Protein backbone atom coordinates (compact mmCIF):
# COMPACT_ATOMS: atom_id res chain seq x y z
CA UNK A 1 0.00 0.00 0.00
CA UNK A 2 1.20 3.48 -0.85
CA UNK A 3 2.21 5.87 1.90
CA UNK A 4 -0.93 7.50 3.25
CA UNK A 5 -1.16 11.28 2.90
CA UNK A 6 -1.74 11.64 6.60
CA UNK A 7 -0.99 8.92 9.10
CA UNK A 8 -1.91 9.40 12.75
CA UNK A 9 -0.81 6.94 15.42
CA UNK A 10 -1.55 6.94 19.14
CA UNK A 11 -2.30 10.64 19.26
CA UNK A 12 -2.92 11.93 22.77
CA UNK A 13 -3.90 15.38 23.92
CA UNK A 14 -5.20 16.58 27.23
CA UNK A 15 -6.11 19.93 28.73
CA UNK A 16 -5.31 19.91 32.41
CA UNK A 17 -6.89 16.75 33.79
CA UNK A 18 -9.36 16.46 30.90
CA UNK A 19 -8.25 13.85 28.38
CA UNK A 20 -9.51 14.85 24.95
CA UNK A 21 -7.65 12.55 22.59
CA UNK A 22 -6.68 9.20 24.01
CA UNK A 23 -4.74 7.37 21.34
CA UNK A 24 -6.23 8.25 17.96
CA UNK A 25 -5.19 6.13 14.98
CA UNK A 26 -6.28 7.32 11.55
CA UNK A 27 -4.99 7.16 7.99
CA UNK A 28 -6.04 9.34 5.09
CA UNK A 29 -5.05 8.06 1.71
CA UNK A 30 -4.09 10.04 -1.38
CA UNK A 31 -7.16 11.71 -2.93
CA UNK A 32 -9.34 10.19 -0.26
CA UNK A 33 -12.03 12.09 1.58
CA UNK A 34 -12.36 11.08 5.21
CA UNK A 35 -15.02 12.50 7.48
CA UNK A 36 -14.64 12.30 11.23
CA UNK A 37 -17.98 12.36 13.02
CA UNK A 38 -18.63 12.70 16.71
CA UNK A 39 -20.65 14.68 19.18
CA UNK A 40 -19.89 18.20 20.28
CA UNK A 41 -16.89 18.34 22.56
CA UNK A 42 -15.46 14.96 21.58
CA UNK A 43 -12.23 16.50 20.35
CA UNK A 44 -12.81 16.67 16.61
CA UNK A 45 -11.49 20.22 16.40
CA UNK A 46 -8.58 19.37 18.67
CA UNK A 47 -7.63 16.55 16.30
CA UNK A 48 -7.63 18.99 13.40
CA UNK A 49 -5.60 21.56 15.32
CA UNK A 50 -3.01 18.95 16.23
CA UNK A 51 -2.53 18.06 12.57
CA UNK A 52 -2.28 21.73 11.62
CA UNK A 53 0.31 22.31 14.33
CA UNK A 54 -1.84 24.78 16.24
CA UNK A 55 -1.80 22.47 19.25
CA UNK A 56 1.05 20.32 20.45
CA UNK A 57 -0.04 16.75 21.30
CA UNK A 58 1.37 15.08 24.43
CA UNK A 59 2.10 11.83 22.71
CA UNK A 60 1.77 10.04 19.41
CA UNK A 61 2.82 10.64 15.85
CA UNK A 62 1.40 12.51 12.87
CA UNK A 63 3.07 11.86 9.53
CA UNK A 64 2.36 13.94 6.45
CA UNK A 65 3.60 12.14 3.33
CA UNK A 66 5.61 9.93 5.64
CA UNK A 67 7.27 12.90 7.36
CA UNK A 68 6.87 13.27 11.11
CA UNK A 69 5.41 16.68 11.96
CA UNK A 70 4.87 16.47 15.71
CA UNK A 71 7.38 18.79 17.33
CA UNK A 72 8.19 20.51 14.07
CA UNK A 73 8.59 24.30 14.30
CA UNK A 74 9.42 27.46 12.43
CA UNK A 75 10.29 27.35 8.75
CA UNK A 76 9.85 23.59 8.46
CA UNK A 77 6.37 23.82 9.86
CA UNK A 78 5.48 26.66 7.50
CA UNK A 79 6.72 24.56 4.59
CA UNK A 80 4.45 21.70 5.62
CA UNK A 81 1.56 24.10 6.03
CA UNK A 82 1.83 25.10 2.37
CA UNK A 83 0.41 21.65 1.60
CA UNK A 84 -2.70 22.49 3.60
CA UNK A 85 -5.85 24.38 2.89
CA UNK A 86 -8.48 24.87 5.52
CA UNK A 87 -12.09 25.95 5.58
CA UNK A 88 -12.92 27.19 9.06
CA UNK A 89 -16.24 26.76 10.77
CA UNK A 90 -16.85 30.51 10.91
CA UNK A 91 -14.94 30.95 7.60
CA UNK A 92 -12.38 33.07 9.56
CA UNK A 93 -12.04 35.60 6.78
CA UNK A 94 -9.71 38.54 7.48
CA UNK A 95 -12.20 41.31 7.97
CA UNK A 96 -9.70 44.08 7.36
CA UNK A 97 -9.20 42.91 3.77
CA UNK A 98 -11.32 42.76 0.67
CA UNK A 99 -12.66 39.40 -0.43
CA UNK A 100 -10.14 38.99 -3.25
CA UNK A 101 -7.27 39.85 -0.91
CA UNK A 102 -8.51 37.11 1.40
CA UNK A 103 -8.52 34.57 -1.40
CA UNK A 104 -5.16 35.77 -2.72
CA UNK A 105 -3.55 35.84 0.74
CA UNK A 106 -1.94 32.40 0.52
CA UNK A 107 -0.75 33.03 -3.03
CA UNK A 108 1.00 36.24 -2.02
CA UNK A 109 2.29 34.97 1.34
CA UNK A 110 3.40 31.45 0.46
CA UNK A 111 3.97 31.46 -3.28
CA UNK A 112 5.20 35.08 -3.52
CA UNK A 113 3.05 35.80 -6.55
CA UNK A 114 2.82 39.43 -7.66
CA UNK A 115 -0.39 41.13 -6.61
CA UNK A 116 -1.96 41.48 -10.06
CA UNK A 117 -1.45 37.82 -10.86
CA UNK A 118 -2.71 36.70 -7.47
CA UNK A 119 -5.82 38.83 -7.96
CA UNK A 120 -6.48 37.16 -11.31
CA UNK A 121 -6.29 33.71 -9.74
CA UNK A 122 -8.42 34.86 -6.81
CA UNK A 123 -11.19 36.07 -9.13
CA UNK A 124 -10.97 32.78 -11.00
CA UNK A 125 -11.32 30.82 -7.74
CA UNK A 126 -14.27 32.96 -6.73
CA UNK A 127 -15.87 31.98 -10.03
CA UNK A 128 -15.22 28.34 -9.22
CA UNK A 129 -17.27 28.64 -6.02
CA UNK A 130 -20.02 30.48 -7.87
CA UNK A 131 -19.28 34.07 -6.92
CA UNK A 132 -19.15 36.86 -9.52
CA UNK A 133 -15.95 38.94 -9.86
CA UNK A 134 -17.60 42.00 -8.25
CA UNK A 135 -17.76 40.09 -4.97
CA UNK A 136 -13.99 40.37 -4.83
CA UNK A 137 -14.20 44.09 -4.07
CA UNK A 138 -16.50 43.64 -1.06
CA UNK A 139 -15.44 43.28 2.56
CA UNK A 140 -16.31 40.08 4.48
CA UNK A 141 -18.73 41.99 6.73
CA UNK A 142 -20.89 42.67 3.67
CA UNK A 143 -21.36 38.97 2.90
CA UNK A 144 -24.02 36.51 4.01
CA UNK A 145 -23.11 33.32 5.89
CA UNK A 146 -23.28 31.17 2.77
CA UNK A 147 -21.15 33.61 0.78
CA UNK A 148 -18.56 33.71 3.54
CA UNK A 149 -18.32 29.93 3.41
CA UNK A 150 -17.83 30.12 -0.34
CA UNK A 151 -15.08 32.70 0.02
CA UNK A 152 -13.50 30.56 2.74
CA UNK A 153 -13.58 27.63 0.37
CA UNK A 154 -12.08 29.70 -2.43
CA UNK A 155 -9.28 30.78 -0.07
CA UNK A 156 -8.69 27.17 1.01
CA UNK A 157 -8.30 25.91 -2.57
CA UNK A 158 -6.49 28.95 -3.99
CA UNK A 159 -2.99 27.65 -3.29
CA UNK A 160 -3.83 24.25 -4.78
CA UNK A 161 -3.24 22.40 -1.53
CA UNK A 162 -2.65 18.66 -1.40
CA UNK A 163 -4.73 18.27 1.73
CA UNK A 164 -7.84 20.25 2.58
CA UNK A 165 -9.45 20.38 6.02
CA UNK A 166 -13.09 21.20 6.53
CA UNK A 167 -14.21 22.19 10.00
CA UNK A 168 -17.97 21.73 10.18
CA UNK A 169 -18.49 23.16 6.70
CA UNK A 170 -22.29 23.26 6.89
CA UNK A 171 -22.84 24.45 10.45
CA UNK A 172 -25.08 27.50 10.56
CA UNK A 173 -26.34 27.20 6.97
CA UNK A 174 -29.83 26.36 5.80
CA UNK A 175 -30.32 22.85 4.31
CA UNK A 176 -30.22 24.03 0.70
CA UNK A 177 -27.13 26.17 1.14
CA UNK A 178 -25.55 23.26 3.02
CA UNK A 179 -26.12 21.05 0.03
CA UNK A 180 -24.69 23.67 -2.32
CA UNK A 181 -21.56 23.91 -0.16
CA UNK A 182 -21.32 20.12 0.00
CA UNK A 183 -21.48 19.94 -3.79
CA UNK A 184 -18.80 22.61 -4.08
CA UNK A 185 -16.58 20.76 -1.62
CA UNK A 186 -16.92 17.49 -3.53
CA UNK A 187 -16.23 19.25 -6.81
CA UNK A 188 -13.26 21.29 -5.58
CA UNK A 189 -11.61 18.33 -3.90
CA UNK A 190 -12.16 16.26 -7.04
CA UNK A 191 -10.77 18.94 -9.38
CA UNK A 192 -7.66 19.37 -7.22
CA UNK A 193 -7.21 15.65 -6.68
CA UNK A 194 -6.56 16.55 -3.05
CA UNK A 195 -7.04 14.51 0.09
CA UNK A 196 -9.68 15.83 2.42
CA UNK A 197 -10.29 15.53 6.13
CA UNK A 198 -13.57 16.92 7.40
CA UNK A 199 -15.14 17.02 10.80
CA UNK A 200 -18.85 17.38 11.13
CA UNK A 201 -21.91 16.21 12.99
CA UNK A 202 -24.18 16.87 10.02
CA UNK A 203 -24.90 13.39 8.66
CA UNK A 204 -26.32 14.64 5.34
CA UNK A 205 -23.08 16.49 4.72
CA UNK A 206 -21.07 13.49 5.85
CA UNK A 207 -22.81 11.10 3.44
CA UNK A 208 -22.25 13.49 0.59
CA UNK A 209 -18.58 14.37 0.97
CA UNK A 210 -17.08 11.24 2.53
CA UNK A 211 -15.38 8.25 0.97
CA UNK A 212 -14.70 6.94 4.39
CA UNK A 213 -16.13 7.76 7.80
CA UNK A 214 -14.49 7.52 11.19
CA UNK A 215 -16.28 8.06 14.45
CA UNK A 216 -14.53 9.70 17.37
CA UNK A 217 -15.81 8.88 20.82
CA UNK A 218 -14.13 9.34 24.18
CA UNK A 219 -10.82 10.17 22.60
CA UNK A 220 -10.61 7.18 20.29
CA UNK A 221 -11.72 6.21 16.81
CA UNK A 222 -14.37 3.62 17.63
CA UNK A 223 -15.47 2.85 14.08
CA UNK A 224 -13.87 3.41 10.70
CA UNK A 225 -15.26 2.27 7.36
CA UNK A 226 -16.52 3.17 3.89
CA UNK A 227 -19.46 5.56 3.86
CA UNK A 228 -21.67 2.93 2.21
CA UNK A 229 -21.34 0.69 5.25
CA UNK A 230 -22.24 3.27 7.84
CA UNK A 231 -25.83 2.05 8.04
CA UNK A 232 -24.66 -1.54 8.61
CA UNK A 233 -21.88 -0.88 11.08
CA UNK A 234 -23.41 -3.08 13.81
CA UNK A 235 -21.91 -0.56 16.18
CA UNK A 236 -24.49 0.74 18.66
CA UNK A 237 -22.56 4.00 19.12
CA UNK A 238 -22.50 4.74 15.41
CA UNK A 239 -26.15 3.75 15.02
CA UNK A 240 -27.19 6.05 17.79
CA UNK A 241 -25.21 8.92 16.37
CA UNK A 242 -26.28 8.71 12.75
CA UNK A 243 -29.92 8.42 13.73
CA UNK A 244 -29.62 11.16 16.31
CA UNK A 245 -31.27 9.30 19.18
CA UNK A 246 -31.05 10.54 22.74
CA UNK A 247 -31.34 6.94 24.00
CA UNK A 248 -28.39 4.61 23.55
CA UNK A 249 -24.90 3.82 24.80
CA UNK A 250 -23.69 7.40 24.28
CA UNK A 251 -24.53 9.59 27.21
CA UNK A 252 -24.16 13.30 26.65
CA UNK A 253 -21.54 14.40 29.09
CA UNK A 254 -22.44 17.58 30.83
CA UNK A 255 -19.23 19.32 31.79
CA UNK A 256 -19.11 20.35 35.42
Amino acid at each position, binding site marked *: MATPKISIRGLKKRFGSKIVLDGVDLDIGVAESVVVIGGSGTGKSVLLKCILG*LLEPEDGSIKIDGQEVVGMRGRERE*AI*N*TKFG*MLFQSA*ALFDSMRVWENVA*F*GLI*AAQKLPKAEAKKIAIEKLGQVGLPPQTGELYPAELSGGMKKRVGLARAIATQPEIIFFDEPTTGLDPIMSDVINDLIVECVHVLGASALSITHDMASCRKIANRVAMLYQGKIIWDGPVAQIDHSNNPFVDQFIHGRAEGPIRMQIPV
Partner: protein
Amino acid sequence: MNPLATIGRFAIAFLQRIGAVAFFASRAVSHCVRPPFYLRHVGLQMMEIGYYSLPVVGMTALFTGMVLALQSYTGFARFSAEGAVATVVVVSITRELGPVIAGLMVAGRIGASMAAEIGTMRVTEQIDALHTLSTNPMKYLVAPRIIAGAAMLPLLVLVADIIGVFGGYIVGVYKLDFNAGTYLKQTFDYLEVMDVVSGLVKASVFGFIISLMGCYHGYNSDGGAQGVGRATTNAVVSASILILVFNYGITEIFFSGR
Protein backbone atom coordinates in the same frame (compact mmCIF):
# COMPACT_ATOMS: atom_id res chain seq x y z
CA MET B 1 -9.18 27.10 53.24
CA ASN B 2 -5.52 27.03 54.04
CA PRO B 3 -4.28 30.64 53.82
CA LEU B 4 -0.72 29.58 53.06
CA ALA B 5 -1.92 27.51 50.11
CA THR B 6 -3.84 30.51 48.82
CA ILE B 7 -0.78 32.74 49.03
CA GLY B 8 1.25 30.04 47.33
CA ARG B 9 -1.24 29.68 44.50
CA PHE B 10 -1.25 33.43 43.94
CA ALA B 11 2.53 33.52 43.92
CA ILE B 12 2.74 30.68 41.41
CA ALA B 13 0.07 32.20 39.19
CA PHE B 14 1.87 35.54 39.32
CA LEU B 15 5.22 34.02 38.41
CA GLN B 16 3.61 31.99 35.64
CA ARG B 17 2.14 35.14 34.17
CA ILE B 18 5.50 36.93 34.29
CA GLY B 19 7.11 33.95 32.61
CA ALA B 20 4.45 33.83 29.90
CA VAL B 21 4.82 37.54 29.17
CA ALA B 22 8.62 37.29 29.09
CA PHE B 23 8.43 34.32 26.74
CA PHE B 24 5.96 36.13 24.50
CA ALA B 25 8.19 39.24 24.53
CA SER B 26 11.31 37.30 23.56
CA ARG B 27 9.48 35.58 20.71
CA ALA B 28 8.08 38.90 19.53
CA VAL B 29 11.47 40.60 19.60
CA SER B 30 13.13 37.72 17.79
CA HIS B 31 10.53 38.06 15.03
CA CYS B 32 11.18 41.81 14.88
CA VAL B 33 14.78 41.24 13.82
CA ARG B 34 14.39 38.28 11.45
CA PRO B 35 13.04 38.48 7.91
CA PRO B 36 10.56 38.49 6.30
CA PHE B 37 9.50 41.97 7.37
CA TYR B 38 6.01 43.25 6.74
CA LEU B 39 7.06 46.83 6.08
CA ARG B 40 3.63 47.92 4.88
CA HIS B 41 2.18 46.80 8.18
CA VAL B 42 4.89 48.58 10.13
CA GLY B 43 4.02 51.74 8.20
CA LEU B 44 0.29 51.38 8.83
CA GLN B 45 0.87 50.86 12.54
CA MET B 46 3.22 53.87 12.66
CA MET B 47 0.46 56.02 11.18
CA GLU B 48 -2.02 54.65 13.68
CA ILE B 49 0.21 55.06 16.72
CA GLY B 50 2.11 58.19 15.76
CA TYR B 51 -0.04 60.33 13.53
CA TYR B 52 -3.53 59.55 14.75
CA SER B 53 -2.56 59.89 18.40
CA LEU B 54 -1.26 63.44 17.84
CA PRO B 55 -4.51 65.28 18.72
CA VAL B 56 -5.05 63.35 21.95
CA VAL B 57 -1.46 63.62 23.08
CA GLY B 58 -1.21 67.26 21.95
CA MET B 59 -4.28 68.30 23.91
CA THR B 60 -3.20 66.56 27.10
CA ALA B 61 0.33 67.93 26.82
CA LEU B 62 -0.96 71.46 26.25
CA PHE B 63 -3.16 71.48 29.33
CA THR B 64 -0.57 69.70 31.43
CA GLY B 65 1.97 72.38 30.58
CA MET B 66 -0.54 75.11 31.32
CA VAL B 67 -1.62 73.78 34.68
CA LEU B 68 1.97 73.06 35.61
CA ALA B 69 2.90 76.72 35.09
CA LEU B 70 -0.12 77.88 37.05
CA GLN B 71 0.42 75.48 39.95
CA SER B 72 4.14 76.02 40.29
CA TYR B 73 3.61 79.79 40.15
CA THR B 74 1.12 79.80 43.02
CA GLY B 75 3.17 77.26 44.94
CA PHE B 76 6.53 78.97 44.44
CA ALA B 77 5.05 82.38 45.26
CA ARG B 78 4.94 81.23 48.87
CA PHE B 79 8.71 81.49 49.06
CA SER B 80 9.18 84.13 46.35
CA ALA B 81 10.63 81.75 43.78
CA GLU B 82 8.25 82.62 40.93
CA GLY B 83 11.23 83.00 38.62
CA ALA B 84 11.74 79.25 38.56
CA VAL B 85 8.42 78.55 36.82
CA ALA B 86 9.86 78.25 33.30
CA THR B 87 12.58 75.87 34.44
CA VAL B 88 10.22 73.74 36.47
CA VAL B 89 7.85 73.46 33.53
CA VAL B 90 10.48 72.43 30.98
CA VAL B 91 12.25 69.97 33.25
CA SER B 92 9.05 68.34 34.49
CA ILE B 93 7.63 68.05 31.01
CA THR B 94 10.68 66.63 29.28
CA ARG B 95 11.73 64.27 32.07
CA GLU B 96 8.44 63.06 33.45
CA LEU B 97 5.13 64.36 32.27
CA GLY B 98 5.69 64.28 28.52
CA PRO B 99 6.56 60.59 28.34
CA VAL B 100 4.21 59.46 31.11
CA ILE B 101 1.18 61.36 29.88
CA ALA B 102 1.77 60.44 26.25
CA GLY B 103 2.38 56.84 27.34
CA LEU B 104 -0.83 56.63 29.34
CA MET B 105 -2.91 58.26 26.61
CA VAL B 106 -1.49 55.98 23.94
CA ALA B 107 -1.96 52.97 26.23
CA GLY B 108 -5.65 53.81 26.40
CA ARG B 109 -5.96 54.50 22.71
CA ILE B 110 -3.63 52.02 21.05
CA GLY B 111 -3.23 49.28 23.67
CA ALA B 112 -6.99 48.86 23.79
CA SER B 113 -7.45 48.78 20.04
CA MET B 114 -4.60 46.30 19.56
CA ALA B 115 -5.99 43.96 22.18
CA ALA B 116 -9.49 44.22 20.74
CA GLU B 117 -8.35 43.70 17.15
CA ILE B 118 -6.00 40.80 17.80
CA GLY B 119 -8.38 39.33 20.38
CA THR B 120 -11.22 39.33 17.86
CA MET B 121 -8.93 37.72 15.31
CA ARG B 122 -8.13 35.05 17.88
CA VAL B 123 -11.71 34.19 18.80
CA THR B 124 -12.90 34.22 15.17
CA GLU B 125 -10.06 31.83 14.22
CA GLN B 126 -8.40 34.40 11.96
CA ILE B 127 -5.08 33.80 13.73
CA ASP B 128 -5.40 30.07 13.08
CA ALA B 129 -6.25 30.93 9.48
CA LEU B 130 -2.97 32.85 9.18
CA HIS B 131 -1.13 29.71 10.27
CA THR B 132 -2.80 27.61 7.60
CA LEU B 133 -1.86 30.23 5.00
CA SER B 134 1.83 29.83 5.84
CA THR B 135 2.02 33.14 7.66
CA ASN B 136 3.41 33.39 11.15
CA PRO B 137 1.01 35.57 13.15
CA MET B 138 3.79 36.64 15.51
CA LYS B 139 5.62 38.08 12.55
CA TYR B 140 2.58 39.35 10.71
CA LEU B 141 0.56 40.84 13.57
CA VAL B 142 2.80 41.29 16.60
CA ALA B 143 6.22 42.32 15.26
CA PRO B 144 4.99 45.32 13.21
CA ARG B 145 3.08 46.65 16.22
CA ILE B 146 6.07 46.29 18.54
CA ILE B 147 8.41 48.00 16.09
CA ALA B 148 5.93 50.81 15.44
CA GLY B 149 5.26 51.30 19.15
CA ALA B 150 8.91 51.54 20.15
CA ALA B 151 9.73 53.80 17.19
CA MET B 152 6.80 56.20 17.24
CA LEU B 153 6.38 56.97 20.93
CA PRO B 154 9.65 58.99 21.12
CA LEU B 155 8.53 61.14 18.19
CA LEU B 156 5.15 61.59 19.80
CA VAL B 157 6.80 62.57 23.08
CA LEU B 158 9.06 65.05 21.32
CA VAL B 159 5.95 66.78 20.00
CA ALA B 160 4.31 66.53 23.43
CA ASP B 161 7.39 68.14 25.02
CA ILE B 162 7.22 71.10 22.67
CA ILE B 163 3.48 71.57 23.06
CA GLY B 164 3.69 71.14 26.84
CA VAL B 165 6.41 73.79 27.15
CA PHE B 166 4.36 76.00 24.87
CA GLY B 167 1.36 75.53 27.16
CA GLY B 168 3.48 76.70 30.08
CA TYR B 169 4.67 79.65 28.01
CA ILE B 170 1.08 80.73 27.22
CA VAL B 171 0.06 80.75 30.85
CA GLY B 172 3.36 82.28 31.94
CA VAL B 173 3.31 85.15 29.47
CA TYR B 174 -0.39 85.89 29.03
CA LYS B 175 -1.71 85.16 32.49
CA LEU B 176 1.18 85.48 34.91
CA ASP B 177 2.74 88.44 33.08
CA PHE B 178 6.23 87.03 32.58
CA ASN B 179 8.30 88.72 29.95
CA ALA B 180 8.22 86.51 26.88
CA GLY B 181 11.96 86.75 26.24
CA THR B 182 12.88 86.06 29.85
CA TYR B 183 10.54 83.09 30.02
CA LEU B 184 12.08 81.53 26.91
CA LYS B 185 15.62 82.26 28.09
CA GLN B 186 14.90 80.59 31.42
CA THR B 187 13.34 77.66 29.64
CA PHE B 188 16.44 76.95 27.60
CA ASP B 189 19.18 78.05 30.02
CA TYR B 190 18.60 75.27 32.48
CA LEU B 191 17.51 72.58 30.05
CA GLU B 192 20.06 69.78 29.65
CA VAL B 193 20.31 67.33 26.79
CA MET B 194 19.93 64.49 29.26
CA ASP B 195 16.49 65.74 30.33
CA VAL B 196 15.17 65.30 26.82
CA VAL B 197 17.10 62.13 26.04
CA SER B 198 15.95 60.36 29.18
CA GLY B 199 12.37 61.27 28.27
CA LEU B 200 12.78 59.83 24.79
CA VAL B 201 14.31 56.62 26.10
CA LYS B 202 11.37 56.31 28.45
CA ALA B 203 9.01 56.91 25.56
CA SER B 204 10.53 54.12 23.51
CA VAL B 205 10.27 51.68 26.41
CA PHE B 206 6.66 52.75 27.03
CA GLY B 207 5.84 52.25 23.35
CA PHE B 208 7.26 48.75 23.55
CA ILE B 209 5.26 48.01 26.69
CA ILE B 210 2.01 49.31 25.20
CA SER B 211 2.33 47.22 22.04
CA LEU B 212 3.51 44.18 23.97
CA MET B 213 0.60 44.28 26.40
CA GLY B 214 -1.94 44.96 23.65
CA CYS B 215 -0.64 42.07 21.56
CA TYR B 216 -0.10 39.67 24.46
CA HIS B 217 -3.58 40.06 25.91
CA GLY B 218 -5.22 40.01 22.50
CA TYR B 219 -3.23 37.00 21.35
CA ASN B 220 -4.12 35.00 24.44
CA SER B 221 -7.75 36.03 24.70
CA ASP B 222 -10.46 33.41 24.76
CA GLY B 223 -14.14 33.08 25.51
CA GLY B 224 -15.74 35.16 22.78
CA ALA B 225 -16.88 38.75 23.14
CA GLN B 226 -16.47 38.72 26.91
CA GLY B 227 -12.93 37.41 26.59
CA VAL B 228 -12.02 40.15 24.14
CA GLY B 229 -13.46 42.74 26.53
CA ARG B 230 -11.37 41.30 29.33
CA ALA B 231 -8.28 41.30 27.14
CA THR B 232 -8.83 44.96 26.28
CA THR B 233 -9.18 45.97 29.92
CA ASN B 234 -6.16 43.92 30.95
CA ALA B 235 -4.05 45.40 28.16
CA VAL B 236 -4.76 48.98 29.20
CA VAL B 237 -4.48 48.39 32.93
CA SER B 238 -1.30 46.33 32.78
CA ALA B 239 0.33 48.70 30.28
CA SER B 240 -0.52 51.71 32.48
CA ILE B 241 0.86 50.09 35.62
CA LEU B 242 4.00 48.87 33.87
CA ILE B 243 4.55 52.35 32.43
CA LEU B 244 4.55 53.88 35.90
CA VAL B 245 6.79 51.14 37.31
CA PHE B 246 9.29 51.38 34.48
CA ASN B 247 9.12 55.15 34.66
CA TYR B 248 10.48 54.98 38.17
CA GLY B 249 13.08 52.40 37.20
CA ILE B 250 14.41 54.38 34.26
CA THR B 251 14.47 57.61 36.27
CA GLU B 252 16.51 55.78 38.89
CA ILE B 253 18.99 54.61 36.28
CA PHE B 254 19.37 58.03 34.68
CA PHE B 255 19.36 60.41 37.62
CA SER B 256 20.04 58.58 40.87
CA GLY B 257 23.78 59.32 40.63
CA ARG B 258 23.20 63.06 40.77
